[in-house]
């Protein structure tokens, strides 16, 4: 069984972090120098890649680590093998 595409396995928890910091998407966009449109793409899981510079700017603005912003779901085949 082929592994799931990696795009679908990466979760972006921007909503949770914005709520924790009491920040809006627009404010975050201003702080990191991105457009609201691009941040929306990231928030809605439609991004295919993120630059390290963008990741670092987001972590600075949200005062978090990359592991809090991004998580990786286990691959379906390894989950099936374990089960």
């Amino acid at each position, binding site marked *: 069984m082929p592994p799931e595409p990696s795009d679908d396995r990466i979760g972006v928890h921007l909503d949770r972090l914005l709520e924790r910091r009491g920040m809006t998407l627009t404010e975050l966009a201003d702080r990191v120098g*991105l457009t609201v449109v*691009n*941040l929306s*793409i*990231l928030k809605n899981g*439609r*991004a*295919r*890649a*993120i*630059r390290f510079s*963008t990741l670092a700017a987001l972590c600075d603005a949200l005062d978090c680590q990359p592991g809090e912003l991004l998580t990786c779901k286990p691959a379906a085949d390894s989950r099936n093998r374990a089960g």
Partner: protein
Amino acid sequence: MEPLSPSYAATVAHRLTTFLLVAAIGVGVFMTADAVIGGPRHVAFDASAPLDFKLLPRGLYPTSEQRTGMVVEDPTAREQRLALAADLVPLLLLVAVLWLLRGVARSVRDGDPFVRENVRRLRAIGVLLIVGVLAVHYVGEALQSALLDPYGRSPFEPVSVPGLLPADDEFPEVQLLCGLGAFVLAQVFAHGVQLREDVEATI
């Protein structure tokens, strides 16, 4: 992704394909209108006629028949229709290819060539150049044979009496190669579209 600023070459290419497209359509409309409302159509075609050996110097002989132009005096309505069809069929193919090419040229002029529509257009051009050119080639041969039918022998009968045969048109290998090239270019554009989508989705 911001479109690139249009280059002069791309603008010229777009204008040239537009001009050729309009000219081809104009020629087709004129030919059709002339056939419908004009007088008897001039019917001319190429044919292969056997060379008279007696006319040649001693020791020389031809290896093929002589290609020559023929004009029909007082063509019948059927002959006029056949001649018009023989002219219009390749013209329609040309118009279709130019239409698609113009679309590609317009997107290049606008600085945004790597779009899915161009992949489809280039594949369509490839199909037209391979399948269409072969169809035009054989339809043209059939039409020429039909024109020759009242005047000579069928090309498939044994030649015991000299007669007229359809002119031996060259096989369109250049157009076929261009069609293959269009398919390859379509795949290049498909990769370009993929790269563009990846870049646009990179934050």
